[in-house]
């Protein structure tokens, strides 16, 4: 037993699996050795080294025991000795080879092949003999036991059983049950998945039973992959051959035609490949199978059926593929290398560490557990980078590489699918092929039933999307032509299909959305959405799948979600809330949930921006909770616009910049950010946008029309109204364009320029209003015209003064602004501030008298007494009296309270109310409508945004009325104080924005 001690010592390096084999050896080996010695057969078997004649030696072992229990124990001990020593030998050889050759991959390959072949031979010999022990002399059917899983992993053995279905199969069934128990006890656990899915509740299934299950439906393509990988372990070679001929061969491509089963399997595999390629790697660990290995295996499975290759071994299959598809040789070589690396890593993990596929990587000690694998694969420590860190990085690279290879091989598979697709032929018949043509809706039912569970339908969806939805129209019409029962049946099948693939479902729905009206089915999208969403049960798997599709295809999911009605969105939200499965998908689920919630809460006005931005930049749909990311994108777009040489491109990029910044502002408002910050941001990006567009307009005229005039110091664009004051979310854009020149050509040119600018603004949804067109008939007013106009003291002139007083320069120079101040503002407004103040007072009074009260249940937040308009006019009055050069009404009030202590309380009140009203207005525009008339029963979301918590809508309605009432008193108070004030005495002129002495 010195040998056993040595084996114990050598096995120390193996993973925990060694313990169960050593346990069996400790219990049974002494008796086995005694029996061998008694029979003089010690020399006939390899106990202390791997054997190359396992079957024969097992026969010798079998001949020793007196009864079944002894024989089972002896076989179990022999299996344990062999598996331990085979693996120790393979590991030693691998370590030697990786250290003595330049390229590690051939060593990995030899290691895999050597250990895989040895393991499978050992299992085959063991299974055959143990089964025979349990069957004894019992009558038995013709049968074959097949290995159907990978031979490169040893913790379990996937077995499929085929029999002839005769009565004696019950004996075989019982024997296999015992074999399974024995393997769990003394060898590698047997899994008989195929048996659980095919036939009755027996471990064995006959060829007719396989037919019964698989003829009508493609079923589970995983079962088919296992069947295709089957190789006999023990039993009838004839039956195995018959199984291949009658069952598995039909999944291989046949150039003579009749590829219905092959097509179904391929659709299943393409769906599987895409789904595996989309699977994110967890943040807390790696999955040895699902992260990359299964993807590579699936690619080989699919490719070998395309080429009609029945070889079960994946590595050999790749070699055969390279022979028949020489144009893919390089890609297949990469595929093989990745497969070999991932399989080697996985086998080494199982041999040296543990048997689970999920490997947690939560801390340094978890990474350190990979060290034996790294050293076995020949990775050295390199300075501060340990061997295990290197191998882990390399593993992750290989996983990425597997996905990259999948991207490159998918088109090969898709092209083949298109060339053989009977599905497409049936569902998109040419007119001349079927006369009278079949009912397409019924054809679809038939196809979907057979293809149940397959998830690759891109070719069919593409056909639906093309030809202006003509095919879709035919489906809809054909369904309508059916009796009600059959119509429902069609809907049921489509529902099952949609539920099976959210990606396909989203594409189908968006096709219905796009073409619904044209094909006379305007409700089709809505009906399909109802059907799809009511089929969802709110299971974690549904959440996982939805999150996966969103993560990879935001360009598809985002418009789908944004097109849903609110009831549908609510259902989607219900489904999305709850447990998630993969930790790395949880953020994507949350982002999808956010998009859905935003779509439900957003007004049409705000949603327009959301739709536009996500259509152009779908990735934005995944950043909605990250305003900084959006800002980064916006800055990138602006930089891109500034560098763009093509004016059209520049125009487009500027528009996208504006939209994304608008969206960001809206999102910030909805998340409760301070409104004054958002107002300031709006001023900034709108100015940048208009300034940029002005340049584009200039360039267009110069390049397209050959016109150029240098008006740098002569032309200026002022924004007035809400945009000038930093009032966010105004959809009209008040402009005052001034020209300090009387040259008629300058006037024509600048008017031309502004007309072009207008067109560009309108394209973005900003409606330009040019106040001066009323009295000039042009977009541009000259200094002289403005002077003449403001010299008047009528009501129209008063409005123009208000506009000018609140105007902010967007385009133009400081010298221009200086001249405007000196020649127009100063003499016509600031020096006549008393007059202006009187006009403000009169305007307030007459508005209150003339204005019809708002309808019950609504307030006009701008025009009603105490509304924003009055407060803004008061701010203008303060500005004129104090000589302030500040465009923001809020800032004006802020500045005024410092030098004008007597009015501080009322000014503070107005500032507070103005801030509140602006915030409420913004919230209302983003969640209900872009209107100043606020419906008081629609304020729930807006109330929440302004921070009113429970019963937010009702509370906001009450507060709006209260604050506007308070504002009327404060407006009156400030105007009265201004009228009575002597600025030289009452007001301390200490603030920088104060301009020349008030008149």
């Amino acid at each position: 037993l010195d040998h056993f001690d040595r084996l114990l010592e050598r096995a120390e390096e193996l993973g925990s699996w060694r313990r169960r084999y050593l346990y069996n050896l400790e219990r049974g080996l002494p008796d086995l050795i005694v029996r061998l010695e008694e029979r003089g057969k010690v020399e006939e078997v390899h106990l202390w080294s791997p054997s190359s004649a396992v079957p024969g030696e097992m026969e010798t072992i079998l001949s020793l025991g007196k009864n079944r229990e002894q024989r089972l124990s002896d076989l179990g001990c022999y299996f344990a000795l062999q598996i331990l020593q085979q693996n120790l030998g393979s590991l030693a050889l691998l370590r030697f080879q990786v250290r003595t050759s330049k390229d590690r991959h051939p060593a990995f390959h030899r290691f895999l092949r050597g250990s895989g072949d040895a393991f499978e031979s050992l299992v085959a010999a063991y299974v055959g003999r143990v089964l025979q022990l349990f069957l004894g002399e019992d009558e038995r059917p013709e049968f074959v036991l097949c290995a159907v899983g990978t031979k490169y992993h040893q913790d379990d053995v996937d077995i499929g059983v085929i029999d002839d279905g005769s009565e004696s199969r019950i004996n075989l069934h019982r024997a296999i049950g015992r074999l399974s128990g024995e393997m769990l006890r003394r060898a590698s656990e047997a899994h008989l998945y195929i048996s659980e899915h095919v036939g009755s509740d027996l471990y064995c299934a006959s060829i007719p039973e396989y037919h019964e299950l698989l003829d009508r439906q493609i079923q589970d393509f995983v079962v088919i992959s296992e069947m295709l990988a089957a190789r006999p372990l023990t039993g009838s070679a004839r039956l195995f051959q018959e199984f291949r001929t009658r069952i598995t061969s039909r999944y291989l491509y046949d150039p003579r035609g009749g590829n219905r089963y092959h097509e179904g399997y391929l659709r299943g595999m393409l769906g599987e490949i895409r789904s595996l390629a989309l699977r994110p790697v967890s943040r807390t660990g790696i999955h040895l199978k699902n992260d990359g290995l299964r993807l590579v295996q699936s690619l080989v499975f699919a490719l070998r059926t395309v080429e009609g290759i029945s070889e079960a071994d994946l590595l050999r299959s790749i070699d055969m593929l390279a022979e028949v598809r020489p144009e893919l040789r390089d890609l297949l070589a990469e595929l093989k290398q990745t497969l070999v690396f991932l399989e080697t890593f996985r086998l080494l993990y199982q041999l040296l560490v543990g048997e689970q596929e999920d490997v947690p990587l939560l801390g340094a000690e978890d990474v350190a557990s990979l060290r034996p694998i790294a050293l076995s694969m020949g990775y050295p420590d390199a300075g501060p980078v340990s061997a295990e860190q290197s191998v882990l990085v390399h593993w992750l690279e290989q996983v990425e590489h597997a996905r990259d290879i999948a991207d490159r091989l998918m088109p090969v598979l898709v092209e083949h699918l298109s060339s053989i697709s009977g599905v497409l032929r049936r569902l998109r018949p040419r007119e001349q092929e079927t006369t009278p043509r079949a009912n397409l809706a019924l054809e679809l039912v038939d196809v979907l039933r057979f293809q149940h569970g397959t998830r690759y339908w891109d070719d069919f969806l593409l056909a639906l999307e093309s030809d202006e939805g003509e095919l879709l129209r035919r489906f809809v019409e054909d369904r309508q032509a059916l009796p009600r029962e059959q119509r429902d049946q069609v809907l049921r099948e489509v529902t099952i299909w949609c539920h099976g693939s959210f990606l396909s479902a989203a594409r189908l729905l968006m096709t219905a959305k796009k073409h619904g009206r044209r094909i006379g089915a305007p409700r089709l999208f809505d009906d399909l959405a109802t059907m799809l969403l009511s089929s969802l049960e709110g299971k974690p798997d549904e959440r996982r799948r939805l999150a996966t599709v969103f993560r990879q295809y935001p360009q598809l999911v985002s418009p789908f979600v944004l097109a849903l009605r609110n009831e549908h969105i609510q259902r989607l939200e219900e489904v999305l809330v709850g447990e998630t499965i993969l930790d790395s998908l949880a953020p994507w689920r949350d982002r999808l949930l956010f998009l859905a919630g935003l779509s439900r809460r957003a007004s049409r006005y705000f949603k327009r921006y959301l739709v536009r931005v996500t259509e152009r930049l779908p990735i934005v749909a995944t950043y909605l909770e990250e305003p900084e990311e959006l800002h980064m994108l916006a800055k990138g777009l602006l930089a891109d616009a500034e560098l763009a040489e093509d004016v059209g491109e520049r125009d487009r990029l500027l528009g996208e910049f504006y939209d994304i910044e608008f969206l960001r502002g809206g999102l910030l408002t909805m998340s409760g950010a301070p409104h004054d910050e958002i107002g300031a941001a709006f001023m900034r990006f709108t100015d940048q946008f208009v300034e940029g567009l002005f340049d584009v307009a200039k360039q267009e005229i110069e390049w397209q029309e050959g016109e150029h005039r240098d008006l740098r110091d002569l032309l200026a664009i002022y924004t007035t109204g809400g945009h000038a004051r930093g009032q966010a979310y105004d959809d009209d854009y008040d402009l005052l364009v001034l020209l300090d020149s009387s040259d008629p050509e300058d006037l024509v040119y600048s008017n031309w320029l502004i007309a072009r600018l207008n067109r560009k603004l309108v394209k973005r949804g900003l409606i330009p209003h040019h106040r001066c067109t009323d009295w000039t008939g042009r977009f541009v007013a000259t200094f002289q015209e403005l002077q003449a106009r403001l010299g008047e003291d009528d009501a129209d002139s008063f409005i123009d003064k208000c506009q000018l007083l609140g105007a902010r320069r967007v385009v133009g120079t400081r010298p221009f602004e200086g001249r405007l101040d000196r020649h127009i503002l100063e003499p016509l407004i600031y020096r006549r501030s008393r007059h202006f103040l009187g006009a403000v007072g009169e305007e307030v009074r007459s508005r209150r008298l003339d204005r019809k009260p708002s309808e019950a249940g609504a307030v006009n937040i701008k025009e009603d007494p105490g509304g924003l308009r009055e407060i803004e006019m008061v701010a203008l009055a303060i500005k004129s009296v104090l000589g302030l050069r500040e465009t923001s009404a809020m800032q004006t009030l802020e500045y005024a309270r410092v030098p004008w202590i007597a009015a501080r309380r009322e000014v503070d009140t107005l500032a507070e109310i103005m801030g509140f009203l602006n915030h409420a207005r913004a919230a209302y525009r983003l969640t209900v409508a872009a209107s100043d008339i606020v419906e008081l029963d629609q304020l729930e979301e807006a109330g929440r945004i302004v921070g009113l918590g429970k019963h937010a809508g009702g509370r906001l309605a009450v507060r709006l009325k209260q604050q506007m009432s308070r504002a009327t008193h404060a407006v009156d108070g400030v105007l009265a104080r201004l009228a009575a004030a002597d600025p030289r005495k009452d007001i301390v002129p200490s603030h920088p924005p104060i301009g020349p002495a008030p008149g």
Partner: protein
Amino acid sequence: MKYEMRLSGSGGQGLVLAGRILAEAAALYDELNATQSQSYGPEARGGASRSDVIISDQDIEFPKTGKLDLLLAFTKDAADSYVEDLAEGGMLIIDEDVVTEPPAGDFRLVKVPFQRLGREKFDRPVVANIIACGVIACLCGHISTEGVRAATLSRVPRGTEDINLSALELGLDVGRDLTSGD
């Protein structure tokens, strides 16, 4: 005697490993018959995880479970999905922090904060599966303490034996407390 159990939750919670430990403990160390099967094919792709274990002192005819004597649910979805498979008078063991609204029915409900225990006692919620092995070994009454210890050692990753054995002992203690309260 035939005892059927299902360990259910989501991928990454180590439920397949736990099922293998319990099956191996029964089959190898306690010399009973056992089978273990797990989610497969499309079901396994979904991210949900299920591991069925049957223990018997007779031959086991087929690995498919019928009515369950014990259901362990690590997620609400698993509890809701499989509770109907529980036999009358069976046992539903839930992670009480996750399944906060357990289904009602004619079964014994056992609440254990598996993941919290893993986090608080070992700073590793991933050992929740091994704690569950200890609890189940105690509560099902057919798996010996020695058997489940040995099976745990032969199944957990190398280098994690100590922490997993401690987690198992904690589970056994919790199981004993629950049993003594009967």
